[in-house]
């Protein structure tokens, strides 16, 4: 029940904020902040106090929903979901803090959308009825599109439509796969079922599994995103408001990776193993292409967006290596990238607030007037190119080590991506913070310091003590 309460609570808080914003301006952000804080605490307390073992999927609730198709409202969590849910809650707080000053028009509706998107994402991470999963998959999309389309930058409608169509079309493929799976279940047992754990018991003929797996894979590859279906991401990131970018990079991309883990690799082990070479090629291309494109950008947010493509390539590479070490690396990378890219986008937002430009050419020499911001920018750029001591390093290191045992050639190629990331990371930092000072900018305010400080602390903690995450994904057998 607890996650249902959390999701309903978020929606209700969003509605409340929307209403109270019209009564008293600026009340919506407080409501959003406190509701997320409260519900996150509630979630953590109830997970800890339940004392259950989450190394296996733990079904929390299972009630019939649409009886015509035997569709259930079923939620379950395991450690993977809990890690990603915690990341979601944390970044949700960051999102609210980031939007604190930025969103002034129609703030009530904005926070409603933000909270609804978060509720949808939470649903994605815990739904185990595939119809329900699809439902949440789409539901998180709508408010996200609204955030981009209403509060975005100059080219927002184009970016929002592109984002929506890419995800929608690919998810229809997934829907077809879901239905096909339900009918395979029907053929084998005489019952239609959309329940994930029922599907795990199925013996799916390989030739069918190949196609069905492909439907899932495409949907998740779009979300991840992987080359060649990545082109929505730079646009969506660039045009979205800061919190939108943070949410997109921090959590939404992770739903793709989560889907790959849960619904591709575990559901179709054999078919995905066959598919692994292709997936790994895509991953390596994403890594190198993302890094190269990032280097060529002049737009701060676009650069970070392309770097996301590169980093998510590491996740895909690691996942399709079918190796426990690589899997652990992938999970750490998910968390680390969620934090570091969120931090970079937050920084981009802070710079935008000061100079009203995202263009790197308009920046330069900020260090003189804003040394604290510069320090954090350096640290986050360092995190992005895998500086030891920060979480990204652990993730990428484990991924590469794990994958090397399976596909050494791919890993050697992928490792060049690390060099690329150092190049664009340093370029990002140097063009914006070093050089002759162009404009005088204010240094970080207390609220901004809280945002970047907390993100940095977490990166450091997971970098120095990765076991904080690793201990939960150790026993996973692939």
């Amino acid at each position, binding site marked *: 029940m607890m996650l249902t309460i959390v999701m309903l609570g978020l929606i209700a808080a969003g509605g409340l904020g929307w209403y109270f914003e019209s009564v008293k301006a600026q009340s919506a952000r407080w409501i959003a902040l406190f509701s997320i804080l409260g519900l996150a605490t509630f979630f953590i307390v109830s997970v800890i106090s339940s004392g259950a073992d989450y190394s296996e999927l733990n079904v929390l609730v299972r009630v019939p*929903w*649409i*009886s*015509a*198709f035997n569709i259930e409202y079923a939620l379950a969590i395991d450690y993977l979901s809990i890690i990603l849910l915690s990341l979601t809650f944390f970044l949700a707080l960051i999102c609210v803090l980031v939007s604190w000053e930025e969103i002034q*028009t*129609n703030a009530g509706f904005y926070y409603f959308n933000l909270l609804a998107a978060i509720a949808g994402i939470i649903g994605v991470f815990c739904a185990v009825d595939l*119809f329900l999963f*699809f*439902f949440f998959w*789409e*539901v998180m999309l*709508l408010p996200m*599109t*609204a955030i981009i*389309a*209403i509060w975005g930058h100059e080219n927002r*409608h184009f970016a*929002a*439509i592109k984002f*929506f*169509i890419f995800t*929608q*079309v690919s998810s*229809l*493929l997934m*829907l*077809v796969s879901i*239905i*096909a799976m339900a*009918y395979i279940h029907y053929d084998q047992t005489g019952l*239609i079922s959309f329940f994930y754990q029922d599907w795990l018991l199925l013996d799916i003929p390989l030739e069918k599994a190949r196609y069905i797996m492909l439907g899932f894979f495409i949907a998740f590859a779009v979300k991840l995103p992987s080359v060649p279906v990545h082109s929505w991401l730079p646009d969506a990131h660039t045009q979205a408001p800061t919190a939108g970018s943070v949410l997109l990079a921090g959590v939404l991309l992770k739903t793709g990776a989560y889907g790959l883990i849960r619904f591709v690799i575990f559901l179709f082990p054999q078919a995905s193993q066959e598919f692994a070479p292709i997936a790994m090629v895509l991953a390596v291309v994403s890594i190198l292409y993302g890094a190269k494109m990032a280097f060529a950008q002049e737009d701060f947010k676009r650069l970070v967006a392309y770097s996301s493509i590169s980093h998510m390539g590491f996740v895909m590479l690691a996942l399709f290596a079918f190796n426990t070490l690589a899997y652990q690396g992938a999970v750490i990378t998910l968390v680390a990238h969620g934090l570091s890219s969120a931090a970079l986008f937050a920084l981009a937002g802070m710079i935008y607030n000061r100079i009203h430009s995202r263009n790197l050419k308009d920046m330069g020499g900020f260090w003189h007037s804003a040394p604290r911001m510069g320090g954090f920018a350096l640290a986050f750029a360092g995190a992005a190119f895998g500086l030891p001591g920060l979480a990204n390093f652990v993730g990428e290191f484990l991924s590469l080590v794990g994958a090397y045992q399976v596909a050494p050639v791919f890993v050697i190629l992928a490792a060049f991506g690390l060099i690329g990331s150092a190049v664009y990371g340093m370029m990002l930092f140097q063009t914006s913070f070093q050089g002759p000072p162009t404009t005088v900018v204010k240094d970080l305010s207390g609220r901004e310091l809280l945002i970047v400080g907390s993100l940095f602390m977490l990166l450091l903690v997971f970098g120095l003590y990765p076991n904080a995450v690793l201990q939960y994904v150790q026993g996973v057998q692939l």
Partner: protein
Amino acid sequence: MITNIMIHAILPELIISFGLVLSMLLIAWQRSQRMIQFLTLFILICALVANIPLFDMDVTQVTSLIKVDTYSAFTFMLIGLSGVVVTLLSGQYLRTKTEVHDEYYLLLQLVILGASILVVSDHFASLFLGFELLSIALVGLVGYIREDKYSVETGFKYLILSASASSFMLLGIAFIYSQTGDLSFVYHTGIVSGELLSADLPTGNVPQQSVVLLVGSLLFFIGIAFKLSLVPFHFWTPDVYQGSSTPVTMILATISKVAMFTVLMKYWFSWLSYSEAGLLDHDNFIKLLSVVAMLSMVFGNSLALMQTNIKRLLGYSSVAHMGYLLIVLMVTSSQSINFAWQSALFYLAAYVLASLSIFTVLIVYSSQRSSGSDKLTSSSTDDDICIADLNGLFWRNKTLACLVILSVLSLAGIPLTMGFIGKFYLLTVATQSELWWLIGALIIGSGIGLFYYLRIIFALFTTEAAESSVNEKNKKLELRLTSHLFIIVLAVVGLFFGIFPDMITRFIGTL
């Protein structure tokens, strides 16, 4: 011999026919727009109430002309409810025009009668009767507002094309009759027809037989395809949608489409069992249907892309939707027929609700606009609503905008709405019958469709329009309480059935 049960089964149709007579008497007695509107409403509600017990009734054959079953009861419900909505909105719409419009309601009742005869028909004679009642009354409605600049063009276009469609259909029926010697649908399925055919004709002649039958069915299908505006018979749709007054467009989009599709399914599934008996090879026909379906999905959506007028856009989108619906006709095994029916009915229900919602918004919005500004500037053009007219609607009237969003999302098939469940049904049918090409076309079509659906939604949120254009646009749009309530009801119903589709599947049976 007509028994009580039979009377019971066709009571809704009888009520409407009786109501028509009463309406004519009322017109002779006193011409009052308000009274005839109430009478029409009353008749429709009586018919709907009489329809309720039919859900629990067994299949009832009333002579060889009419067959009443759960499916026809459900479609009658859709038709009746659309009729109620149209009647309510027509009142508001016609109030802005001069003259007393009694005949309008008479024609409306005739359309509903025609449609309800269509959905229960089980015989080509009753089918044609219903078809013509519907068409001719619609011709009257389409050109009803005489002073409108489009009315002559629209009326003529619809009249001529509709008449030629009927004649194609009639020819098709004649061909079919020449082969089967009978006009009823079910006769095909019965053993009798098989015996008749094989007894009368040597087996060598059978292939030739099927060709004439095939041509007949093709012509028959063309007649229906015109009404459903499937590609390549869709050319009239945007013009007529745009040219008719909005409540009439609403009828075209809902009542006419539902009735036509239902009767097509009735005929088709009888025909299917006919071919199952080995008398007819209809694989080619299915291939043809698939092509028509795919073309409708892709063309309908592509043509809608560049439209700025919302009614034209909806016209093209209806082409695509009928294309999606054709998927259910590709079901080849007789076990799946029930499921195909359920899918089609659910999809129709979703489509009808979404269309009703969006047209309601158009009517309410345009009447609000014309009453707000001075009468001279907005005499003939208040029906032409462009996407740009909706700019910033969300900030001016949230209820109206929310209904637009819901209905557009439902048409686009996004979760939380009935449209999504409808699409889910269709995809299930297609996956079950392994129609991968059609699934591909559906996905591509939906992808294209999202462009224009999202364009409408984004228009609602634009803020620039409010700043730049006349100050009239800036002010909040106030609605009358009744319209407000009506809109809220539509939105709540749409959302409710979208989240709890079980409430509808209960009516049409489950797997």
